């Protein structure tokens, strides 16, 4: 099937449209949207689609965009929104609410640096700020993965064993505005992949309060149930991968993607598009006989701790690359990944590509060389990437 030349923003909007239409036999589709660079083109395209039994609400803020999704999901509809950076920060209160109410909202985040000072370029800090919000978070490496992940996200979010919102993260401009040949499925295929949404907790005419008052004991129970749902995500995701492959003929990536790690003595761990740059650098290093491997963390929530621990076994040196900085700490991915390494492993954190800095294979090779020279891990390093 020949691909269509689309940006990741448009790929996401097409996926949301197809998913929206696929719920026409159930409660329909309703989305609240608000523009912010670099996610705007996604909502623009969505607003230009005809969606049978669908409604896209052009609201006055990101806070309300997520609120419309909350209302729509509580009413049993399929829901979608998109945002970035300060929009996500402004939305944050309702982002948390959507998760705690166990509503299967899907959001595409075009990762962008938080401001002011204003910077529209890529940085994972906006969505990582919400890592504790109770959402599933997937980080994508290319446009096809964005489209596929949005479709998978609906099926994962709406699975009765999960019922959690999913954030599909794609780096601003690097993916959001870069047009690539992308396979866009037909409505018939999406209809076969996405079953009609039947949220068991949707509002009906029965008197009942959704989101009422919790006391400590009921909060404990609710958090425990939420965590148990998170614990089921990877098992359900495997079924989603199988179902996707059966319909579309290609398999969505695993929660953790290993590249040439079999005999690796050193590993470079990263997320998003930087991981594809790392793979090129690994090829380069391998051609010189260096036993370097790459690991891409695609699912950040739930955190794939077991998969990472398995891949880290026997490796003596690990570099973790973060396109973010938790100020006063270091890279967020580094903070979580290093706990999965065996005792005695040298795990060094590097923060690179902040504010959209262009990360190239030579940066990765320089980091690999820096890792090789170290006798012990030090404080996280803020590595300057290109302009």
């Amino acid at each position: 099937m020949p691909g269509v030349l689309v940006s990741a923003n448009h790929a996401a909007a097409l996926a949301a449209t197809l998913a929206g239409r696929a719920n026409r036999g159930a409660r329909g589709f309703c989305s609240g949207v608000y523009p912010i660079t670099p996610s705007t083109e996604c909502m623009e395209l969505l607003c230009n689609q005809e969606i049978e039994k669908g409604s896209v609400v052009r609201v006055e803020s990101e806070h309300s965009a997520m609120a419309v999704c909350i209302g729509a999901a509580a009413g049993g509809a399929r829901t979608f929104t998109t945002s970035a950076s300060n929009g996500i920060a402004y939305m944050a209160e309702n982002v948390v609410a959507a998760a705690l109410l166990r509503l299967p909202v899907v959001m595409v985040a075009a990762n962008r640096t938080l401001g002011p000072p204003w910077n529209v370029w890529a940085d994972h800090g906006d969505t990582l700020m919400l890592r504790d919000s109770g959402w599933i978070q997937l980080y994508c490496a290319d446009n096809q993965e964005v489209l596929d992940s949005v479709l998978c996200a609906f099926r994962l979010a709406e699975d009765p064993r999960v019922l959690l919102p999913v954030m599909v993260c794609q780096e601003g401009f690097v993916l959001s505005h870069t047009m690539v040949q992308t396979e866009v499925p037909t409505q018939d295929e999406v209809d076969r992949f996405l079953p009609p949404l039947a949220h068991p907790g949707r509002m009906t005419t029965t008197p009942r309060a959704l989101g009422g008052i919790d006391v400590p004991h009921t909060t404990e129970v609710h958090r425990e149930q939420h965590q148990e749902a998170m614990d089921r995500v990877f098992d359900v995701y495997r079924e989603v991968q199988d179902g996707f492959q059966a319909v579309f003929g290609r398999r969505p990536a695993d929660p953790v993607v290993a590249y040439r790690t079999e005999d690796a003595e050193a590993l470079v761990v990263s997320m998003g598009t930087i991981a594809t740059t790392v793979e090129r650098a690994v090829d380069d290093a391998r051609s010189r006989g260096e036993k370097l491997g790459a690991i891409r963390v695609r699912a950040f929530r739930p955190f794939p701790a077991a998969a990472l621990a398995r891949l880290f076994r026997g490796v003596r040196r690990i570099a973790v690359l973060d396109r973010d900085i938790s100020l006063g700490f270091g890279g967020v991915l580094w903070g979580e990944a290093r706990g999965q390494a065996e005792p005695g492993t040298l795990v060094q954190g590097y923060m690179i590509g902040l504010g959209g800095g262009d990360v190239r294979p030579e940066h990765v090779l320089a980091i690999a060389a820096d890792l090789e020279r170290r006798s012990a891990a030090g404080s996280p390093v803020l590595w300057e990437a290109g302009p």
Partner: protein
Amino acid sequence: MSESVLASLPAERSSSHAPLLRPGNANCGGCGMSTAFQLFGRAVDGRPVLLVIPASCAAVSIGPFPYTALGAPAVLTTFGAAAAVATGLSRVARLNGEATRVVCWAGDGGTYDIGMASLSAAAERDEDILYVCYDNEIYGNTGGQRSSATPAGAATTNTPLGKVEQKKDILGIVAAHRVPYAASLSLAHPQDAIRKMRRALDTRGFRFLHVLAPCPTGWKSEPALGVELVRLAVRSGLFPVLEVIEGRTLVVNVEPELSQEALERYLSLQRRFLKSGVEARALRVSIERRWQELRSRSGPPAPARGEG
């Protein structure tokens, strides 16, 4: 609020229905919002309603999970998001051909202040929502801080000497969006209140109802005197009871006496006005100015029959 508002109403078949706000709720004795709920339950009279309640006394009053003191389904939202959450629920209800009335039930903080943006946007989009603001002129749920609905001269926990600024004209603000229907209700005029609640329930598009809801805890008033306080607020002209149709036609439903005696009694029955020393004479000026404005916009008076 011991004066029986409901007893003054003619018996009708809804009296056999379960109330909208059920026994066991956590509201204070004399809560004006409770009375508003009882009237609203009468008005609803079997119509399918779905309540959307932002953080507020109303949210707390329904009691802890998994219980609810409400006789209708309710979605509880973040503080500023009621109108936007209601938008999603209403759109989905319409997509599915359901007649469900999606009703926001919000306090003055969630309406005048933190909810203003989402309220204004939903009104501008003419969403099919009924938005009810029960206005107790205070952040009651957090213990009584000033809101932009608090009248000048009223002491609150963060304006201990009395608020300086005037109360916002919320009905004027919402009506300026040219919404199909916006009205203020008096708990002391239950027939007029229920008539307008029903009109609002059965109108399509964005509808807004403003209810002055005495809060004995915040107003430092006798719980039994709530309805009397509302009556005094209406008689004195302090709380105009009116409706605005399509943002253009303004109808005064209860003619005020503009009574000085009523205004003095209204102030003296609440201890919140003590410290500021605000006097009826000083308020007279702004009340008369307000009524001049209303008269210039209203048609011939259409007073509620036999009430007040």
